[in-house]
């Protein structure tokens, strides 16, 4: 009986479990159907999602201005319902959760999700900036063939690479959601491990303050693409890191049973409090997203600006949301609001949402074809402004961005400078340097304000074109030339092991003192009061002062400090553990050499003819080399106090290294596509051989572009610079923040722009880049605007006498007018016979 019970009980349990599964499925379906019914007639039971989450039926708006309550079941990427309490549930899928009502296929063609569409999508926008500080790379990228940007595909960047680089500021979709064919074409990618990042509807439409862009970025960096939307939206808590899992892992493999500490497979724990009894999740949504959603990726702030002192865009101050103007239908082809957009995109509604459309009721030709005054837009009278301004200038020239100054101001943007990713470590970067405003003539001949970035990258010169190299290729060729800070930091970290708690080993050079930091680099601080160190010296920071690491003493003297040789012993032990040490660590004090020989601490007289300066060093081929090479010390000293990451010496050495390797390292990790990369400025394409993984011509010179100049080695092997099209800056239009009317150009009269020394016409923008050099390019405002500088200066001078000319004209009018009145009176008098006609 007991034996039978042992079989019967589990069997009954299994039967009960099966019964529950079946009825549960039914109740879930019923719940879904009820939810659909309650949402309105469009969501009837026949509107079941297809296997790919697309609903081909067009659901017309019923006219209600409310947002439906989204208490809906979650589905995963297999279109399976998610039970939040089950073990290891999948993250939710927007495609199958939102898709039944909002056609996913229609949405994915929208502006934010068609990043990889090759056709130029209207007016150029901000490119993605590939930033690699180590190699001094600031490379503008765009799939959309915008001028000044490089095609990522042509540079060998796959969708996976692009997602790893920039997925932090994606809204999902686009490169992060490749097709199955694209996945198969990238064997090195880890899509099977990470999953795809679908369009993240919550990134814009989540009204909950739990929406966390930093969490999204963190999950992307952890390669938890499939889980990122769930984590960022606060729908559930996501742990684990796909980046630590092996290449063949897949979610169907389940958790990593061998490792619960480090290589933990991603998992999600849902916030069950947000689910109802039918396992439906409540999405707190906004039909029109709040501004904070947009600003996660579209923030722009001046460097050094105090947040409390900034002023918002006048539209925001008036209560408008971003999405009030930048609106879209289900297709998510958002209106960008520039003149000519209606013609570019074929969306006539866009005409109403330009500056002219809203405020003047005019289309781009000036015809009154649209109804003005949307959202109570005031009508600008523009009193006293000559008509030519409206023909040659965009509205944003006078009304948007910072007022013109002698030099453009520096700003940070979300996507270029990695803003908005908060946590223990702040992730934003000062570079690339984004400058605004610069005024550039657009394709329609109108001048408009723009932001500007000077590109910086390594490349190979093919004829007149420059073919960029990937940073990894440059690192492979450059080796330690790029890492002098790391080398010195390693030495300091090694020495630190032999120091007391209140001591910190430092390197003093020039007026700076260098200390190792937790990132493996160096922190520089100004030397405490005292003369500049002419030569670099290794010292100890003790309290607030610096003392020599190894003070000078007489090794033969019986009065020497008793612990000094003990310290030397500990230094040598510590240095011997340093990785990549160039030789055996030794210390030379006067003529006495301290070293470890066969494991024994050896104190002996230095051999005759021994070369080397007193102090610690490396014994290399019988010679004492300094702990840090002169190149390393020179390089870190030169760059201290600057934001540059490369010196001319480094560039020279790297160009030599690239030339010696013949570009093999570059070609090995460079572009593998058929088409040669070409910068979108109409430049000719490079020969195909240069990009097919084969070695380039042995004499093909390598170059470095920075700060508006192209640097290469001349015939004598010295670094020379020249102007080049590849070094030209990339610009993109700006339209925000719109300033209040009293801060607009022209409010104070014509002199705001028209004067002999006008900042609008006669400012210039100097080249900036990672290279520390005096050889930089420069662009004058008039050259960017495509107008004559001499004429503008002359014209500006005339404004000095303009008030006088107005007075002269007024007097002439008075005199002439008076005479005309008299003549008229004479005519009337003669006609009336009051005055006799002259015979």
């Amino acid at each position: 009986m007991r034996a039978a019970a042992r079989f019967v009980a589990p069997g009954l349990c299994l039967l009960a479990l099966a019964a529950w599964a079946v009825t549960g499925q039914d109740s879930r379906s019923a719940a879904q159907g009820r939810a659909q019914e309650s949402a309105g007639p469009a969501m009837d039971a026949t509107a079941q999602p297809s296997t790919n989450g697309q609903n081909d039926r067009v659901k017309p708006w019923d006219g209600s201005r409310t947002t439906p309550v989204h208490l809906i079941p979650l589905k995963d990427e297999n279109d399976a319902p998610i039970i939040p309490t089950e073990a290891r549930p999948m993250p939710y899928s927007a495609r199958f959760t939102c898709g039944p009502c909002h056609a996913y296929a229609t949405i994915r063609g929208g502006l934010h999700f068609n990043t990889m569409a090759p056709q130029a999508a209207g007016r150029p926008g901000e490119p993605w900036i590939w930033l690699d500080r180590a190699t001094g790379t600031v490379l503008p990228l765009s799939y959309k063939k915008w001028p000044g940007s490089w095609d990522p595909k042509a540079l060998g960047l796959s969708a996976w690479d692009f997602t790893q680089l920039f997925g932090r500021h994606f809204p999902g979709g686009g490169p992060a959601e490749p097709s199955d064919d694209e996945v198969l074409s990238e064997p090195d990618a880890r899509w099977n491990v990470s999953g795809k990042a679908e369009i993240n509807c919550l990134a814009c439409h989540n009204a909950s303050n739990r929406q966390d862009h930093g969490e999204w970025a963190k999950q992307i960096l952890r390669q938890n693409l499939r889980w990122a939307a769930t984590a960022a939206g606060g729908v559930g808590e996501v742990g684990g890191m796909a980046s630590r899992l092996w290449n063949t892992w897949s979610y169907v493999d389940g958790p990593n049973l061998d490792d619960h500490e480090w290589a933990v497979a991603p998992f999600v724990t849902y916030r069950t409090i947000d689910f109802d009894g039918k396992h439906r999740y409540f999405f707190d949504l906004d039909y029109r997203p709040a501004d904070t959603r947009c600003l996660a990726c579209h923030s722009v702030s001046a460097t050094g600006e105090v947040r409390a002192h900034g002023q918002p865009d006048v539209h925001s101050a008036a209560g408008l949301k971003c999405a009030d103007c930048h609106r879209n239908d289900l297709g998510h082809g958002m209106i960008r609001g520039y003149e000519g957009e209606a013609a570019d995109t074929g969306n006539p509604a866009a005409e109403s949402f330009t500056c002219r459309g809203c405020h003047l009721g005019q289309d781009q030709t000036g015809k009154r074809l649209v109804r003005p005054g949307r959202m109570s837009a005031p009508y600008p009278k523009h009193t006293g402004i000559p008509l030519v301004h409206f023909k040659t200038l965009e509205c944003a020239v006078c009304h948007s961005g910072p007022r013109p100054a002698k030099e453009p101001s520096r700003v940070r943007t979300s996507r270029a400078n990695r803003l908005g990713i908060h946590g223990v470590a702040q992730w934003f970067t000062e570079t690339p340097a984004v400058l605004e405003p610069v005024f550039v003539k657009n394709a329609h001949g109108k001048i408009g304000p723009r932001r500007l970035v000077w590109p910086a990258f390594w490349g190979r010169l093919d004829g007149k074109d420059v073919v960029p190299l990937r940073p990894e290729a440059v690192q492979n060729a450059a080796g330690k030339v790029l890492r002098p800070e790391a080398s010195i930091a390693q030495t300091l970290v090694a020495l630190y092991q032999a120091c007391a708690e209140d001591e910190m080993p430092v390197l003093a050079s020039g007026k700076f003192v260098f200390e190792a930091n937790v990132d493996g680099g160096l922190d520089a601080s100004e030397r405490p009061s005292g003369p500049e160190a002419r030569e670099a010296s290794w010292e100890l920071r003790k309290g607030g002062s610096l003392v020599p690491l190894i003070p000078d003493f007489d090794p033969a003297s019986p009065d020497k400090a008793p612990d000094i040789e003990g310290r030397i012993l500990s230094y040598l032990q510590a240095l011997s553990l340093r990785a990549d040490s160039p030789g055996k660590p030794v210390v030379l004090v006067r003529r006495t050499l301290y070293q470890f020989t066969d494991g024994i601490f050896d104190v002996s007289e230095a051999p005759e003819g021994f070369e080397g300066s007193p102090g610690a060093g490396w014994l290399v081929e019988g010679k004492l080399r300094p702990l840090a090479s002169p190149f390393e010390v020179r390089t870190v000293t030169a760059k201290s106090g600057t934001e540059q990451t490369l010196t001319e010496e480094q560039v020279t050495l790297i160009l030599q290294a690239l030339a010696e390797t013949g570009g093999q390292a570059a070609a090995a990790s460079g572009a593998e596509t058929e088409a040669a990369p070409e910068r979108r400025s109409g430049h000719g394409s490079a020969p195909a051989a240069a990009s097919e993984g084969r070695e380039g011509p042995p004499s093909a010179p390598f170059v470095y572009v920075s700060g508006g100049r192209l640097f290469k080695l001349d015939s004598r092997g010295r670094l020379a610079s020249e102007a080049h099209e590849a070094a030209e800056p990339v610009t993109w239009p700006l339209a925000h923040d719109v300033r209040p009317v009293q801060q607009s150009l022209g409010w104070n009269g014509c002199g705001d722009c028209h004067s002999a020394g006008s900042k609008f016409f006669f400012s210039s923008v100097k080249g900036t880049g990672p290279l520390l050099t005096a050889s930089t390019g420069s662009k004058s405002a008039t050259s960017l605007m495509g107008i004559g500088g001499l004429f503008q200066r002359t014209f500006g001078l005339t404004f000095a006498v303009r008030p006088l000319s107005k007075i002269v004209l007024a007097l002439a009018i008075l005199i002439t007018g008076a005479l005309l009145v008299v003549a008229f009176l004479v005519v009337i008098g003669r006609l009336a016979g009051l005055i006799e006609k002259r015979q």
Partner: protein
Amino acid sequence: MFAIVSVLAIIGLWLGLAFRRFGTRAAERPAEGTNKPGPGAFSRWFFRRVAESLRKPGRDALTDRLRSLASRRAPVLEKWLLVGLYATFLFLAASGFFFAIFIERGLFGVTLLLHFTAGVIFAVCLALTAILKAGRYVPNPGPLSLPAFSGDFPAGRGIGKVMEVSVPARDIISGLFWVFVLAGFSLTVSALLPMLPWFHYQGQVILFAWHRWSALAALLAAIAFADLEFFPRRPAA
């Protein structure tokens, strides 16, 4: 539309003045040609005169006439005032109409700068010239007279016969002078007002159009005035 109207108006005025010369000549020499000069005779005469003007004798005659005008004895101030007026007006008309008719963008650049500078000089010269020449060209119309109503309106007499006004050429010249002054005044006003912070966008558009049409009026008046005053038809011998 402005370009078309300007071109047609200038051509029309030119033809009109030419027809006046032709008509006057025909009236003085009734024995020549037909009694009623028609379009055919006018066109033959017109093209003959144009051809004559383009030949050397014609050009020499024009040059001599201009020299005689320039050598008229006049006070220095008046002379330079008139030179300034004519020169600036010629430049303003040439630059303004060329850009208005042939350049879609309109006046811009250095030409605009010079146009404005010349405009200021023109305004001053116009004012002073008006003062100096007002006496010479004082309006002199006769009193208007209406016939006494006799209660009898003869049949067949149209209303156009009620008032008959005879205008001597001198009065026409005077009238053209004042039309030119009025147009110049209008040009100056429409140039100054946009520079003041009084008018909004639509107002600027209206002032701009006002300036153009005033310029056309001034040019037409100047052409007619110059034709009648400086190039009078010599009476038939």
